């Protein structure tokens, strides 16, 4: 175990109920989880099998156990040369958790069936695991790439689950140096419909925007926006539940706030009007200045002093930026989200 604290990576994950399940009054069977532990950031996504009565419990159990296990054992796992033993170790841990869950719900293991997608980063390395449908994608200096395509059977309603007899043989794992990789996305087959081109096997341009926003906007502000985007846009293209989990860090592909063109900064600061107008451009400059100041944490009093304005005025400006999510407040200190 080791590694330095990996604070530059940010993560977000979200799952929404599909129209099919809403009509039948069934719970959302897509589940997501994220975890930051020991300098490792992990995201996981599981899509509960439609045919399995309690797969929403199964999928939740799978993502919880998977994130905890990878967070704990990341460096051991990526040090191993034998991929098969890594696959078996992960599946054994998950199946054990599912057996406990099955006892709790007094059901069969197959009633908890789900797919599994994992991405983890730590100390300049990454680890990915994929079983079943859904897509794992990433972003490097050349743009968006697909790491693992959906593992469907021939027909649309066929795939493999953690409880399938052939799960170990079908699970794909990847590891390597992060180098210029600055984003990972996990998506369920419901989200695939809008965020993945099945014919070309490429990711939609929207994925990069999601990764970028993950870097620039505070998770608490971004989360309801992501939920709304999945519900109103992505879920409208499918009957299925929709989920994504994202890991991202700023890079040349995902520039920090101060490297963005004025129009994008204006959008992020949520300032309306043409930036050709003096009032608008002045407002943007003021926000720029505050974000620059807050590259290190400052209190309200310190911000006001540095801006040569009254505290009330500074507070108003800070409130706007907090609402936009480009700065966050921790205790009494304010700080820019993407430095």
């Amino acid at each position, binding site marked *: 175990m080791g590694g330095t604290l990996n604070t530059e990576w940010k993560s977000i994950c979200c799952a929404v109920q599909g129209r099919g399940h809403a009509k039948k009054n069934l719970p959302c069977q897509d589940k997501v989880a994220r975890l930051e532990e020991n300098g490792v950031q992990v995201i996981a996504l599981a899509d509960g*099998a439609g*045919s399995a009565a309690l797969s929403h419990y199964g999928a939740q159990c799978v993502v919880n156990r998977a994130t905890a296990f990878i967070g704990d054992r990341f460096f051991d796992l990526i040090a191993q040369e034998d991929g098969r033993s890594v696959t078996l170790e992960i599946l054994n841990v998950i199946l054990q958790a599912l057996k406990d869950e099955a006892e709790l719900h007094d059901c069969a293991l197959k009633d908890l069936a789900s797919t599994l997608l994992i991405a983890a980063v730590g100390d300049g390395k990454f680890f990915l695991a994929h079983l079943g449908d859904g897509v794992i994608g990433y972003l490097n200096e050349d743009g968006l790439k697909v790491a693992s395509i959906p593992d469907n059977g021939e027909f*649309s*309603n066929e795939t493999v689950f953690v409880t399938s007899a052939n799960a170990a043989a079908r699970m794909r794992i990847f590891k390597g140096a992060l180098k210029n990789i600055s984003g990972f996305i996990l998506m369920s087959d419901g989200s695939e419909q809008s965020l993945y081109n099945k014919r*070309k096997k490429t990711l939609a341009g929207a994925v990069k*925007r999601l990764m970028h926003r993950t870097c620039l906007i505070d998770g608490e502000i971004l989360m309801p926006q992501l939920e709304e985007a999945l519900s109103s846009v992505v879920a409208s293209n499918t*009957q299925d539940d929709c989920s994504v989990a994202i890991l991202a860090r700023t890079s040349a592909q995902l520039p920090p706030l101060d490297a963005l063109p004025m129009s994008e900064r204006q959008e992020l600061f949520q300032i309306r009007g043409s930036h050709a107008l003096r009032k608008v451009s002045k407002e943007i400059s003021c926000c720029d200045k505050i974000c620059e100041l807050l590259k290190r944490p400052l209190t309200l009093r310190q911000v006001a002093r540095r801006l040569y304005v009254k505290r009330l005025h500074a507070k108003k400006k800070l409130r706007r930026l907090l609402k936009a999510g480009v700065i966050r407040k921790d205790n009494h200190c304010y700080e820019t989200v993407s430095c």
Partner: protein
Amino acid sequence: MNDLLRKKDLETNPTPRVPICLCLDVSGSMNRIVGGQTRDTGRKAFIDGREWNIVEGGVTALREMIGGVNLFYDNLLEDEVARFAAEVCVVTFGGSANLVIDFANLDRQEGTRQQKISNLTAQGETPMGEAVNMALDCLEARKDEYKEAGVDYYQPWLVLMTDGEPNGSEAEFNRAVSRTNALANNRKLTIFPIAIGEEADIDCLAKFSPRRPPLRLKGMNFKEFFEWLSQSVSRTSQSMPGDTVKLDTEGIKGWAEL
């Protein structure tokens, strides 16, 4: 419009398809009268392997079947998911095997569909093997097109309806039986063999279907059958990975006997 996701940055993948091939008997015997007022002409004719009394008026089995097929299309078109998911192909056998309507999106077929179906006539012998082979060839070709275009699809369905017994090439019949058995046993095809009336050879139909016994239509309940079929297509088109689409066997009881 959502600020986070712009429509122009999203992909639009086609709806996963449910390919369905209707393989329908239009041999001479489908001209049998199954209802309505008739007047005997006193003439007799030997058609499709047996002697018939020629009458005027009445409703033929073919007309009833056509009504059922049109209802099937209408029901699918009314379903918000099945309308874009279902793709139907119609192969008939009467004298020879004919591809009447090739696979396409339902809306695309709509312009000519009713005319093609309504113009069906019952004549000739019952080359069932040839027709089933043609239907399977169409299904295979459509699956290849789906794969080429990156379109997901569900297990194809083959509906085979006959009121008689096959009298085409024996080699073609055996080849068709062996193909449907291989596909059905490997869960690559769902086949519904349907016997129309008491004279349909149910043993021959059974040879096509190793997993599901043929069903005999109660009377001329075509409408009930096609109603049930469209509801089953609708359920399939909304199923998700891992879903096992259970066919509603309770629903079958209304229109067929096992």
